[in-house]
C-alpha cells in the first residue's frame, strides 16, 4: 500500500481551491466592470448579438489579454480570470512534481514531468497555430 500522506492531499486541495477562487474573483470583477462601462447592456437587444457571435471582438492571445486588463477593459479582465482558471490544473501538476521529488519517487517525478511537458506543449502549439 502506498497511501499518500495527508499533507499532500491538503496541499493539492489548497492549490486547486486557491486557483479557482482567485480566477472566479477576477472573472466576476471583469463582468462587473464590463456592465459598469456599458450601461446599455441592461436594456438593449442588439448588443447581445455583437457579444456572442463567432465574430465578436475579444482578445485571444495571452499578451492581448494582459494588455487589455492593464487598461482596465472588462472583457480582457474576464479573459484574464479564465486564463488563470486554465492555469490552475497546470499549477496542480507542477506542485505534484515537487511532492514526488520530496518523496524521492523517481518514477512518478518522470511521469508527472511528462504530463507537465504535454500541458505546456499544448499552450505553445495553440500560440503558434
Amino acid at each position: 500500500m502506498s497511501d499518500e500522506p495527508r499533507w499532500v492531499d491538503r496541499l493539492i486541495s489548497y492549490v486547486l481551491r486557491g486557483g479557482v477562487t482567485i480566477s472566479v474573483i477576477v472573472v466576476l470583477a471583469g463582468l462587473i466592470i464590463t456592465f459598469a462601462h456599458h450601461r446599455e447592456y441592461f436594456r438593449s437587444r442588439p448588443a447581445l448579438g455583437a457579444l456572442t457571435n463567432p465574430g465578436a471582438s475579444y482578445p485571444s492571445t495571452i499578451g492581448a489579454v494582459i494588455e487589455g486588463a492593464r487598461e482596465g477593459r472588462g472583457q480582457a479582465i474576464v479573459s484574464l480570470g479564465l486564463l488563470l482558471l486554465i492555469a490552475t490544473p497546470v499549477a496542480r501538476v507542477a506542485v505534484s512534481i515537487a511532492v514526488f521529488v520530496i518523496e524521492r519517487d523517481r518514477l512518478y517525478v518522470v511521469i508527472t514531468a511528462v504530463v507537465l511537458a504535454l500541458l505546456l506543449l499544448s499552450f505553445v502549439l495553440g500560440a503558434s497555430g
Partner: protein
Amino acid sequence: MTPLLFVLTVALVSLLAGFLGSLLGLGGGMIVVPALTLLLHIDIRLAIGASIISVIATSSGAAAAYVRDGLANLRVAMFLEIGTTLGAITGAYLAGIVHQRFLYILFGLVLGYSAMAMLRRRRVAEEREIGPLTMRLKLGASYVDEKSGQAIAYQPAHASIGLFLMYIAGSVSGLLGIGSGALKVPAMDLAMGLPIKVSTATSNFMIGVTAAASAGLYFTRGQIDPFIAAPVAAGVLAGAFLGSRILGRVTSRSLRVTFVIVLVVVSLQMLLKGVRG
C-alpha cells in the same frame, strides 16, 4: 434578451449542469453544450469553448473536496493523465478535420456500451491478474467508506489498458469540449477494477488537466468568448460545489444506477444528433 438577462440565464443553466456533472463524474460539459446550443442558440464552437472552461472549473472545484477526503488516487491520476493529455491535444487538433456528425454517433455508441457494461458487472468481484507494469506503478491504496467508517483497500489492475482507454477519453474531451468522465469512470471502474467512488473522484481530478491541455488551443482560436464562458464558469462552479457536498452521502449502488440511466439518455441524445445532423 438583454446582455444582462443573457448572462444570468447562462449562469443559472450552468449551475444546474455543474451540480449534475459533479454528482455523476460527468463534468458539466455534457449538459452545458446542449443547453447553450439548443436552448440559447449559441454557436456550437463558442459553446464548446465555454464548456472546456466549465469543465476545468467543475473538476478543480470538486476535486479539491475529493482530494481532501482521500477519495482520489493521485498516482492513478498522474499515470493516466499521460494518456488523457496526449489524447486531448490530438482531439483538439482533429476537431478541425473530422466531421462532427461522425463524432456524435461514435460517442453515442461508446456511451451506450459503457452503460450496458456497467449494468452487467454489478456485484462481480473477479480476481484480476496484476501485471509487472501495474505492480511497478504502486497504484494500490485505500479509502475510508463514509457509511461503514471502514478503510477499504484496493489494488488496480491492467494499467496499460487503462492508459490506452484514457487516450481515447482525452481525444473525445478535446474534440467535443467535454470532460468525458463518462469514459474515464468505466475505464477505471471496469477495466482497472477501482472502486466506483475512487473512480468517480479520480476522474474528476483528471478532467481538469485533460481540459487544460486542449483549452490553450481553443483560447488562441478565439473560441472562448468571455461573455459566455464567464457565466458558465461561475455557474458550474457553484453547482459543482453543491454536488461535491452530496456525493459522499450517496451509496455506491444508487450512484451506479443513476449513472447508468444518465449514460443511456445522453447516448441516445448523441446518436440522434449525429443521425439528424
